[in-house]
């Protein structure tokens, strides 16, 4: 049977496309290479019960995948490094039903209008290919509104003075503010910043048949045991309930088959290794900004910009140890953020000028702590100091931190391609990431890092430290690899087929029925987590395909 659409990837993008298309009457097959731990295998309209407060399972044993032994990636900082300097885990997002939505702690801010028009608003940057998006905030706003409702987002209207206009309120009020965040937000305000309750895809009240978050604290990098998180469980349950969708988990798409300007379907490798062809009228690629270009390249598609302009956020982490417990293990990981370091000010303009750059932009700053004891323990040296450090707990019990999701500019040399020799366990070439931060990222981090530390000092920190991800070190060091998980930008969207891979609707310029519905299409990385924007774009792409409109 030929399905109306095969959707490759069951993360937030693919799930959203599936939800919109099945609601419009389409039949879809959702193909996911990872396992299904999200939905009850006996009734795919119900959530499963596999997730738990288990640091070993989620942090140390790859429960959500991918396991780098069987699905490695490779890395290098530039072509000068040779074929690669590292084989293993490279900024991986879960490979599982629900994709990155399962492990995200659900901060889902909208972008601001400026984020879609860097070139016209601020001008070019040396070495970077800064460009405007072919869609703007106003075009995307109705889709933001729709997906905030379908994902389930809690927030406080009017709390962020820099936010753009909204056509409707947040679907839920903000949840309980964390003890440490109340104090870091107060310190930030005293220094003139504008912190606000983070728009969060975790239920603050019972919503859409799922319970309110009970603040268990095992949020970032964990699946939610009670399904209070706005991972794609809501979209997938609705999709399966239509009876028009099939979910093929543990199934790998090895190739999109094409004839002329059309795709005819995809080649699949099933859980048992058996290969088959799945015919489809449309192909929706939503495998994430590393696996999506990998698949396009495995399929032999030849646009020269496939995989180019990989971006991942250059993170600046400022941590401080407080003279009091911060209770970071209670609550939903991050309850406060501020936008001031994206918006910029006179000091940032002066820092740019001093560095000889036209402008710098930081990123959203997340106020958070560290909650997990195994992670903490591994940071301390072994030996006689261990028990005292763990009991005193300067980097868990008393730590508070800011993570700035620094905007990463698009550079032609930062890219995803196929590794020439390294294979996955199925025998296919793996994705190779070539990445190094540019001068803009380093200058911006250098400017904002000490300012983040100053807020922690205002909060009372006994000591502070500033680090970045990727960190320093040489190309061989794993610290050269970004860890943000915010991979974007490898099938750039645009109107000109010479400078972009997909058109403004997400469709490949070269193929009439292949649409990319994930963060690969991002033109620039903004300084915000990509999830809500990629979901809004996926909803828009699906509505445009089906000829339907977003629900106001």
């Amino acid at each position, binding site marked *: 049977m030929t399905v109306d659409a095969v959707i490759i990837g069951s993360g937030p993008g693919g799930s959203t496309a599936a939800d919109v298309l099945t609601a419009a009457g389409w039949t879809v097959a959702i193909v996911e290479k990872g*396992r299904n731990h999200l939905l009850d295998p006996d009734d795919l309209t119900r959530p499963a*019960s*596999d*997730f*738990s*407060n*288990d*640091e*070993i*399972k989620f942090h*140390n*044993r*790859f*429960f959500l995948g991918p*396991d780098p*032994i*069987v699905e*490695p990636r490779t890395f290098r900082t530039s072509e000068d490094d040779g074929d690669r300097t590292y*084989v293993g885990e490279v900024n991986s997002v879960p490979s599982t039903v629900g994709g990155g939505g399962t492990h995200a702690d659900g901060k889902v801010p909208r972008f601001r209008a400026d984020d879609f028009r860097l070139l016209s608003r601020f001008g070019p940057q040396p070495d970077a290919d800064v460009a405007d998006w072919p869609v703007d905030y106003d075009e995307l706003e109705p889709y933001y509104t729709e997906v905030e409702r379908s994902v389930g987002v809690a927030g406080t209207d009017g709390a962020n003075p820099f936010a753009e206009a909204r056509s409707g309120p947040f679907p839920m009020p903000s*949840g*309980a*503010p*964390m*003890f440490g965040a*109340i104090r870091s937000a107060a310190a930030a305000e005293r220094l003139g910043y504008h912190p606000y309750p983070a728009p969060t895809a975790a239920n603050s009240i019972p919503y859409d048949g799922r319970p309110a978050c*009970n*603040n*268990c*604290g*095992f949020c970032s990098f964990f699946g939610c*045991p*009670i399904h209070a998180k706005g991972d794609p469980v809501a979209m997938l349950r609705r999709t399966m309930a239509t009876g028009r969708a099939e979910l093929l988990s*543990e199934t790998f798409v090895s190739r999109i088959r094409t004839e002329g300007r059309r795709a005819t379907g995809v080649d699949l490798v099933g*859980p*048992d*290794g058996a290969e088959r062809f799945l015919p489809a009228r449309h192909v929706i690629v939503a495998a994430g900004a590393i696996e999506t270009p990998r698949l396009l390249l495995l399929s032999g598609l030849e646009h020269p910009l496939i995989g180019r302009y990989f971006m991942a956020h250059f993170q600046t982490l400022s941590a401080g140890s407080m003279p009091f*417990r911060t*209770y970071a*293990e*209670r*609550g939903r990981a991050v309850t406060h953020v501020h936008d001031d370091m994206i918006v910029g000010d006179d000091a940032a303009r002066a820092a740019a000028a001093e560095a000889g750059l036209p402008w710098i932009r930081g990123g959203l700053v997340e106020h958070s702590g560290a909650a997990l*004891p*195994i992670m903490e*323990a*591994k940071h301390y040296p*072994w*030996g*006689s100091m*261990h*028990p*005292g450090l*763990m*009991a005193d*707990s300067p980097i868990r*019990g008393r730590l508070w931190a800011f993570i700035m999701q620094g905007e990463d500019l698009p550079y032609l040399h930062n890219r995803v391609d196929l590794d020439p020799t*390294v*294979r*996955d*366990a199925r*025998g296919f070439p793996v994705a190779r990431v070539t990445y190094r931060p540019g001068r803009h990222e380093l200058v911006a981090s250098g400017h904002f890092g000490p300012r983040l530390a100053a807020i922690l000092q205002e909060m009372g920190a006994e000591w502070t430290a500033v680090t970045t991800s990727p960190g320093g070190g040489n190309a061989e060091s794993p610290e050269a690899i970004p860890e943000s998980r915010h991979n974007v930008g490898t099938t750039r969207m645009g109107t000109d087929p010479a400078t972009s891979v997909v058109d403004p609707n997400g469709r490949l310029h070269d193929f009439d029925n292949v649409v990319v519905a994930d963060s690969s299409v991002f033109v620039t990385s903004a300084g915000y987590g990509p999830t809500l924007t990629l979901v809004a774009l996926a909803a828009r792409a699906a509505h445009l395909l089906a000829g339907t409109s977003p629900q106001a």
Partner: protein
Amino acid sequence: MPVWLTDQEVGVLAAACDRVIPAGDTGPGASEAGVPGYIDGLLGAFTFDPPRIWAGGPTSGRMGGDARFAHFHRLSVLDELAWRIRIEGSRGIPEREFNGPVIGLQEQYRNGLAALGEDFGELDGDEQDARLRADPEFATLLYGHACEGMYGAPEYGGNRDGAGWAAIGFAGDVQPRGWTDAEVTAP
């Protein structure tokens, strides 16, 4: 009865675990907390069916709900391949060597413990440290697993009776109770 290591190896392992995580003012050292059992359980994970890789969900029963952690997940074909390679190594088996040979944890521990020496437990602390430092890669591996066994869920064989958590004032897995809004905002 150890699952995979020999009694003699467990003795060396226990002494090494106590050297990397000794007893403190607030709790026991690693061996009393069951850490050698955690590591032996990982090395022998495939002795069990399902293999003891991923504890079940959603709750352990410690804070209410059913005691599901002890019901370990089944592995897929790909999961089993990954974990057999990680634990057992590739052993020259072609389907495990798609990117070349891999030395597994079993071999790393067998060699690492042998290098520490049968007499490791009888040495003074400085000499134990010197032997651990002689192979930093193995010491890092051992310490990482010791941290997991000390502060991870007890269903994996370590953190006996939650002793590791109690020593540091950590509540452990808190579902389905969670924390009230008041406990989050004004503890």
